């Protein structure tokens, strides 16, 4: 069951990401990214982080990406044209990314034993709830980061206002 979930949604995520890379219109790229995020939400859920899965859908797909789509629509951004810069980027980008991928997956796979496997029986069949656990940690051990986030959001609001406001 979990393997099936992983294979289906993992492949979906990879397909979405590759489509994201290949599409040339920002809207299409954004939609592929949404597919990736939704499949990741399912994977989170399959890893026992169901609250996180919901947050992923609500925050990422439902708010952040909507903003992206909104801006693409607002600016009416068209397809990207190929310039000489993009060709140079291909020479740097593809090998670089491949190198990162090879390095990372080599480390992950060689250490595969140490990581072990998922144990999901109680998560999928049961309706256990990790929200209480999350709030315990979030509002006690990590209270300060939580509170400081408000400064972060304040900065972001202030910045969005500063930058997007029209100059009189």
């Amino acid at each position, binding site marked *: 069951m979990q393997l099936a979930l992983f294979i289906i949604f993992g492949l979906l995520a990879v397909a979405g990401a590759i489509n994201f890379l290949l599409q040339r219109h920002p809207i299409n790229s954004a939609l592929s990214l949404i597919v990736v995020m939704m499949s990741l939400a399912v994977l*989170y859920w399959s890893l026992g982080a169901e609250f996180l899965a919901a947050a992923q859908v609500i925050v990422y797909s439902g708010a952040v990406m909507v903003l992206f789509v909104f801006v693409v629509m607002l600016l009416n951004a068209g397809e990207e044209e190929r310039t000489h810069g993009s060709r140079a980027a291909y020479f740097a980008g593809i090998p670089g990314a491949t190198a990162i991928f090879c390095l990372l997956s080599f480390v992950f796979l060689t250490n595969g034993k140490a990581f072990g496997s998922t144990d999901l029986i109680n998560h999928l069949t049961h309706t256990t709830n990790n929200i209480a656990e999350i709030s315990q940690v979030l509002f006690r051990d990590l209270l300060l980061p939580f509170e400081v986030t408000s400064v972060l959001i304040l900065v972001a609001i202030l910045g969005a206002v500063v930058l997007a406001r029209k100059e009189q």
Partner: protein
Amino acid sequence: MTVPISYYLVLAAVLFSIGVASFLIKRNIITIFMSIELMLNAVNLTFVAFAHMWHQITGQIFVFFVMVVAAAEAAVGLAIIIAIFRTRRTLNVDQVNLLKN
């Protein structure tokens, strides 16, 4: 049937690398910004997988913070993008090149 954690990690690595590649290859500023989001998502998957492995909720909470930060960054980043579109009427990074020698 269980899945080795390393599969999740490799999946995250795939997504991260695709994110890096598109960050370098894409020419549209909005798409470049989206590739950063893809990278952050990959990192989030890594966090969740490790949180599951260690039975530590901290990993999940880290993801929450990443989401919050991503949302804040999106607000600011898109505001910058709108500002740049107002002054330059383009979103292609190769044409945003006033700053050179």
